[in-house]
C-alpha cells in the first residue's frame, strides 16, 4: 500500500544568476511500514526534500501524495491539520517545548487536535521509550538521548502514517544513537509506520529497508543497504570532513 508518493518534485531558490536548483525532478514511492534513509553530502538537498515532503516548505514544481492526499492541493489550514494528523517530525535538535514535561510534550499534538490523550496509549509509548520514570521531568532535566526519545514519542502519539526524521541522532553519542535507532526500527515494525530519515551515519543505514542518495538535488534510489554499500566509503569520508570543519 502506497503511503508516500513524490512526483517530479523540484525546488528552486533565488533568481537569475543566484538561482539554485535544490531539488531536480525527484520522484519516489514508499510503501506502508517501510523504513528508508536519505543520505548525501551537506547542501545536497536532503533537508529541502524532507521539508517539502512534510509540507513545511513549498516546492516549485511537482506533487507529494501522503496516504493518497495531494499535500499542496490543500489550503494552508487544511494542510496544517493534515500534517498534524498524518505526519510526525523528529528533529536533530529535539525541539521539545521547554516549559512542558515529558508527558505533556508527548501529548501536546493530541491537545492541538482537540483530542483527549488515551491513558493506555501514553503509558505504552512511555514504556516503549523507556521514559516512564521520567514522565514529569522537564527537557532541561533530561539527557540528549532521553530528549530525543521524548521527541519520538511526540511523533508517535498521533499514530501518523508517515514519520520524517532529520538526522535524529546527529546530536547524540553513539550509545544514545543506537537506542534511538532501535526505537525507530521497533516503531516501524510494531506500528507499521513508514519512516523517512536523513542520516550521515552509514552505520545506521544497515537497519533500513531502502536507501536514497541525494546528489546536487538529484535523488537516486539505492535499493537495500547492500546497494548503498559501494558508496559507504565516500559517505563516511564526507562525514569526517564535516566533523573536521
Amino acid at each position, binding site marked *: 500500500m502506497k503511503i508516500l508518493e513524490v512526483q517530479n518534485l523540484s525546488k528552486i531558490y533565488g533568481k537569475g544568476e543566484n538561482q539554485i536548483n535544490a531539488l531536480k525532478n525527484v520522484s519516489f514511492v514508499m510503501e506502508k511500514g517501510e523504513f528508508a534513509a536519505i543520505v548525501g553530502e551537506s547542501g545536497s538537498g536532503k533537508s529541502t526534500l524532507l521539508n517539502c515532503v512534510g509540507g513545511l516548505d513549498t516546492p516549485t514544481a511537482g506533487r507529494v501524495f501522503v496516504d493518497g492526499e495531494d499535500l499542496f492541493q490543500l489550503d494552508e489550514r487544511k494542510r496544517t491539520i493534515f500534517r498534524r494528523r498524518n505526519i510526525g517530525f523528529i528533529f536533530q535538535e529535539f*525541539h521539545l517545548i521547554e516549559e512542558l514535561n515529558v508527558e505533556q510534550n508527548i501529548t501536546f499534538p493530541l491537545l492541538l487536535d482537540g483530542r483527549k490523550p488515551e491513558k493506555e496509549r501514553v503509558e505504552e509509548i512511555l514504556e516503549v521509550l523507556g521514559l516512564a520514570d521520567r514522565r514529569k521531568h522537564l527537557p532541561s532535566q533530561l539527557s540528549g538521548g532521553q530528549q530525543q526519545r521524548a521527541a519520538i514519542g511526540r511523533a508517535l502519539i498521533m499514530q501518523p502514517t508517515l514519520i520524517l526524521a532529520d538526522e535524529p541522532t546527529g546530536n547524540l553519542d553513539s550509545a544514545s544513537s543506537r537506542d534511538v535507532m532501535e526505537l525507530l526500527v521497533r516503531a516501524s515494525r510494531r506500528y507499521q509506520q513508514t519512516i523517512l530519515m536523513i542520516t550521515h551515519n552509514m552505520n545506521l543505514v544497515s537497519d533500513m529497508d531502502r536507501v536514497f542518495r541525494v546528489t546536487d538535488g538529484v535523488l537516486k534510489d539505492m535499493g537495500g543497504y547492500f546497494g548503498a554499500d559501494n558508496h559507504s566509503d565516500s559517505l563516511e569520508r564526507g562525514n569526517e570532513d564535516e566533523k573536521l570543519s
Partner: protein
Amino acid sequence: MKNYLELASISAKVRKDQNRMTVFCIIFSVFLVMTIFGMADMEIRTMRKQAKEDYGEWHIAFRGMDDEQMEILAGRPEIETCSRYDVLNYRLDMHYRIEGEEALIAGLDRTGLDVFGVRMQEGVFPEEPGEVMIDADMKKRLGLTVGSRIVLSGPDGTEFVYQVTGILEQTPMLAEKGVFGLIMNMEGFRNIRAKEGEERESLIYVKFLPWCNIRKAEESIRDQFGIPEDKVSGNELLLATMGQSDDPTILILYGAALFLSILAAVAGVLMISSSMNSYVVRRTEFFGLLSCLGAERKQISRLVRKEALGWCRIAVPAGIGIGTGIIWLLCAFLRLTNPEYFGKMPGFGISWIGMACGAAVGVASVLMAARAPAKRAAKVSPLEAVSGNAHSNMGVRKAAGKGFGRIETALGIHHALYSGKNFILTTSSFAFSIILFLAFATTVDFMGHALNGLQPYTPDISLIGQEGDSSMDGELGERISKIEGVKRVYGRMFAYDVPVEIRGEKGSACIISYEDYQFGWAKEDLVEGSFEEAVNGRGMLAVFRPDQPVREGDVLQIDTGNGGEEFAISGVLSQCPFNSADGEVILICSESTFQGLTGEEDYTIIDIQLNRRASNTTIDEIRALAGDDVHLSDRRMKNRQAKGAMYSVIVFVYGFLAVIALITVFHVINIIAMSVSARMRQYGAMRAVGMECAQMEKMIVAEAGTYALWGMIIGCGAGLPVNRILYYYMVTVRWGEEWTFPTASLAVILIVVAVSLAAAVHHPVRRVRRMSVVETIIRTE
C-alpha cells in the same frame, strides 16, 4: 494538561522574568488610565461639591411662571424639589441699608434652603413676613443673635423691622460684594417688592431627582408651560459635573479631557503592542515549532492572546492598586497644599469609574495589542524552527557601510537603518513623543495667561471709593500697610472715557495710574517697547487689543478738558488685570503723569495683599481705617477658589506632560530591548568570532543613537511648527504675545530622550555581557 491553551499559563510561569517588561507595560497603562480617569472623577466630585456651595444645588431655573404653575411643576415625578426666588438690590444701586451698609435682600421658599444648598449655622427658616435670616458676617459685625430685631431702611427712607430667626453661613458672593445679606420668605419679600412698585417675573429654581435626563425634562416642562428658551437658565457648572451640560465651553473642555484620555489609552496600546512584538520576536522559533507540530494559525493566535490575558490577571489588579494609591497620594497632596479648595476631596475615595476604565482599557489594549503579534506569530513558518535560521538573515539586502569609523559603529548604524519599515516605525515613535510633548507644552503658556489666580498682582482685599470716585488719599494706603497681616498695599487712579486721538482717529481711552509694584508686575507682560519712558512720566503703556492694535511709537493726543496733550506710546502690554468698554483703549501711566493730566490725586481703588499672619481682625482694622464711605471687597474666598482651579489645571497639564515623558522613557527602553533581543544570536556569533564586550556596547549605542538622532530631527522638525501654530492660536491671538523658541520644553524632552536612551542601552548591554556565547548561538529563547 487537558487543553493546548494551558501551555500559555505554564509558559507564563516559566518565563516570568522574560515577560516582566510586558507585564510592567500593562501595569503602567492600567495605572495611567486609572489615574487619569480616577483623578478626573475625584476632581468632578470636588467641583460638584464646590458648584453646589457656590451656586446652589438647583439644576434649571424657569422665569415667568406663576405660583399655580409652580405647584403643578412641583408635582412632576422627575422633580425632587423647587423654590421661588427673587432678589432686591443685587447691584447695590437701590440703597436698601442696614445701619448704613448696603444690604442684599433675597426671598425664597423653605425648600429653597435645599435648592440653593444654603447651610444654617443656627435658628430656623423665617415662616412669617416679619422674619428674616441673616448672614454670619452681619451677625458678627452688628452683634446680632437669633431673636434680635433689625431695621432695614429703604431708598425712600421707609423702615422695615424684622426679627432674626436664623443665621446663615457666609457665602463667597456676599464676602466679595462686602454687603449684608437678608433672606426672607416669599411673602415677606413680596411686601417690600410691592412697595418698590416694580413688577418682575418670578424665578423658579428646580432641583431634579438623580439619574434624570435633565435636558429632556427641561424641554418637556417648557412645552407644558409654554416657556420660551430664553427664559430658561441652567446651573451650568453643576450640570457639567453631571455630564448634562450643553454649554459649548464645557463640552470643549470635556472633549479635551476625553481626547487626552484616549491619547493615554493609545499610548498604552502602543506600549503594550511594541512590548508584545518584542515577545513574538524572541519566540519566533517557538511559534515555528508549534506550527511544525500542527498548530493552526488560529490556535497560535489564541495561545498568544491567552498568554496576554494571563498577564492581565496580574497586571490589571496591580495597575488598579497602584493607580488607587497614586490617586490617594495626589488627593492628599492637593488637600494639603490647598485645603480651602481641595479640602472636600475624598480622603480614601474609590473611583469605580477609574477602576472600570483602567481595567477595560488594560484588557482591551492587551487584546488589541495582541492582535498584531498574534497574527505575526501565526505567520511564522515552521521552517524557522527546523532550520535554526530564524534570526540569521532577517531580510538584509545591503551590506553595512564602513563610512562611520570603526566596524562596530558602522554595524550599529546599519542595524538601525537596514530595514526601512523598522527604521521608520522606531524613529516615528521617538518623534511622536517629542511632537506630543512640544504640542502640549503650549498649554503651559496658555495656562500662565489664562489663569488669574497665578497673577502676582491679585489682591486679597480691595477698597473701592463709593460710586467709583477717587476718594482715598495716599496716606490711607500707608496707614493700612502698617496693620499686622498686611503684606502689600498699592493704589490706582482711573479716568474713564477720556477722548483720545490715535493716528488721526478719534476714540476714547481708560487711563490708569500705576505705582512701582504694579509697574514691576507689568514688566512680565511687555511685548513691545520699554518701560522707562512710562515710569519716568515721558510716555504711556498701551494694552494690546486684537481689534485695535496700538503700536509702540504711536503718538496720542489726549483731551484733558484743559486742551490737548501729546504722549508717545513707549510700550505695549499683552494684558492687564482690567477690562475696558468696547473700542476703549487702556492706557497706563505713572501717578505723576496721571495727576498732571487729570488733576486727581486720590486713588479710586486701593488693593491690599495679606500675608499668612492676617486674620479677621486685620480685615476689621482695614475696614475701620477706610471708614464707611469706602466699600470693602473681600476676595479671599474667590482667590482661594481661583487658586484651587489653577492647581487642578497645573496638576492636569504637568501631570500629562510627565505622562508623555514617561511614555517616551518606556518606549525608548522597549524598542532598544526588542531590537537587542531579536539579535541575540547574531551578537553571540560576533562574540564567538572575537568581538569584545566594549565593542558590542558601542554597536548597541550606535544603533540606539541612530534611532534617537533621527527621532529628534523628525520630532523637532514637525514638533516646532506644531508648537508655533498652537501657540499662535492659544496665546498670540488672545494676548498678542509672539512665539518664542521653546528652549525649556525642547531641552526637557531631549534630555528625557537622551536619559531614556542611556537607561535603555544599560540593560541590554549587561545582558550581552552576561550571555553564554555557545548557548546564545544554539538557542535564542
